[in-house]
């Protein structure tokens, strides 16, 4: 297994390298520099600024400098957030984004598996159709619609239960307080809950018909043990292989969620960087995301190989 893991890690390096190279050159063929929008500067000052950011050198030299710095974990200075390096900005934003994303994926896995199992156990009954109908809505309606609508109903109109009014904060992070996390995490998790519920339902329906489940029932095991111990384990394999795409989906969704709810994560830096043409920041975040996605895909693949003994470690 370790040989397999090592090979996968080594295989990820060229991937990351190609992504870095591609983003770098894309950013540098862009017409207009990051300082074009500012007031007209005297030529000497403009020259000094360009020199300070190495923009006066040929592109291949800039590329070499960038790679050299990257090897030391330095993503360069941010062009627009003066006095900050990209590494510093990411160091501030990443824990926030990671916490948001991790909570969302955990929520999605638990709720998704629960709903999918319930739907499979009630196959072709009202519960099943209800769950799958909601899942269809969850998959189709994008995050940037569910986000504002949930905020409207839970954050602005509020819930009126048992004579009390409940309002969730409509935005802000507040150091990651639970109340502030509920809405963004839910919005981020909804599409993934829907997909996971559909996956689990599909595989669970098949597993429940298999011989070993019938055997388990025949020896008189209680129903919940058959479902939880025997069936669920096999039914979870598609979920594990879906983890990679789920994470990609979460990263995409986090751009929206962080923007809507004003959460200071790297997704918001990315969007602001893109609007302000802050090349180094955009590149830094893309590289960070790419490394993240590649790493988590790796983990998902290895996890899959561990869970499913039929998978061989050869490629």
């Amino acid at each position, binding site marked *: 297994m370790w040989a397999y893991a090592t090979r996968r890690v080594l295989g990820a390096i*060229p*991937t990351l390298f*190609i*992504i870095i190279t591609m*983003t770098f050159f*894309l*950013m540098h*063929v*862009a*017409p*207009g520099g990051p300082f074009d929008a500012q007031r007209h500067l005297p030529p000497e000052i403009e020259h000094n600024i360009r020199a300070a950011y190495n923009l006066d050198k040929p592109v291949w030299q800039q590329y070499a400098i960038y790679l050299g710095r990257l090897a030391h974990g330095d993503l360069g200075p941010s062009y627009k957030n003066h006095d900050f390096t990209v590494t510093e900005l990411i160091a501030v934003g990443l824990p926030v984004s990671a916490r948001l994303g991790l909570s969302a994926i955990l929520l999605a896995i638990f709720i998704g598996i629960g709903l999918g199992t319930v739907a499979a156990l009630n196959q072709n009954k009202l519960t099943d159709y209800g769950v799958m109908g909601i899942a*269809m809505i969850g*998959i*189709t*309606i*994008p995050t*940037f*619609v569910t*986000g*504002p*609508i949930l*905020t*409207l109903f839970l954050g*602005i109109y509020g819930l009126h239960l048992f004579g009390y009014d409940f309002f969730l904060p409509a935005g802000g992070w507040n150091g990651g307080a639970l109340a502030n996390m509920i809405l963004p995490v839910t919005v981020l998790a909804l599409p993934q809950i829907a997909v996971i519920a559909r996956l689990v339902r599909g595989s669970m329906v098949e597993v429940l018909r298999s011989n070993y489940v019938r055997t388990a029932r025949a020896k008189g095991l209680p129903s919940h043990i058959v479902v939880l111990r025997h069936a669920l384990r096999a039914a979870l394999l598609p979920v594990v292989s879906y983890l990679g795409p789920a994470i*990609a*989906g979460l*990263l*995409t969704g986090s*751009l*929206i969620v962080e*923007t*809507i709810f004003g959460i200071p994560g790297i997704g918001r830096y*990315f*969007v602001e960087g*893109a*609007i302000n*043409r802050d*090349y180094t920041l*955009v590149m830094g975040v*893309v590289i960070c*995301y*790419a490394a993240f*996605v*590649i790493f988590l*895909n790796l983990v998902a693949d290895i996890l899959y190989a561990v869970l499913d003994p039929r998978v061989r470690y050869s490629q």
Partner: protein
Amino acid sequence: MSAPGLANRNTVTLERALDIKGRSLWTDARRRLIQNKAAVASIVLLSLIALLAIFVPFFWPYSYAAIDYGAIGCAPDWWPDWNVPCHAGGWHVFGMDQNGRDLFIRVLYGARISLSVGLVATLVSLFIGVSYGAIAGFVGGTLDALMMRFVDVLYSLPYIFLVIVLMVVFNQNFFLLFVAIGAVEWLTMARIVRGQTLSIKQKEYIEAARAAGVGTLATIRRHVIPNVLGPVVVYVTLTIPTIILAESFLSFLGLGIQPPMTSWGVLIKDGADQMETAPWMLIFPALFMGVTLFCFNFIGDGLRDALDPKDR
């Protein structure tokens, strides 16, 4: 039974078989699609939205950019118990937006943009994906390995990031938006086409074409691509909503369509900003977009069922 009787019956069966008109895969598929109620209803609804988007702007009394300063953020006239008295100059079925523009015509312009982005970008992705996949699969060997490795690399990054990078690079140009989204969203198409090509490559008619001296590119164009169209058609109907979503996503973030032109993403963004005071600004664009996405998904599912060889 005597031998002549058997022969006679066989002849009759054969004659009857010759009388029956053969049903092609596409006739079969169309018949199955028409039986799928959800798909048919989606096609009707989607055509309705498209027709509204195409024709209504020609005679609608308000333009998408015309501002009525007296009617900023006015509710639709029929909006239930809305306690802000507001009298828009004229009849506005969806109310007014935060700048006093008729929301109905803006939603329809949003539909124009979203649907045309969906179609154009899908065509771009179709062109790139099909030619890429067919060449990789047909030529095979090292070229195939290299080309597919490149696809794997791009796959490892959520494509919306590449689109955003492209949008930054090309300075939010309207037409490049179409191309950029399509140019990034072809990976799955390339994989599907490559997989199909690999199996088609083994068929006798390809060998026959080669024996007859047809060149590689001509073989791909004449014999491979027409035969991979089934899965491609299904995937195209699923690509259109993805692309509409991507465009709205970008516009929502302020990286796509620039004002005063609008798209559903922009409208939903504006609506989200104003939802406390003017919820209709969020509800109508979101409704149109949700319905459109649902329709495309149902049509895609219907087509998949119709073309899926497993059901036959």
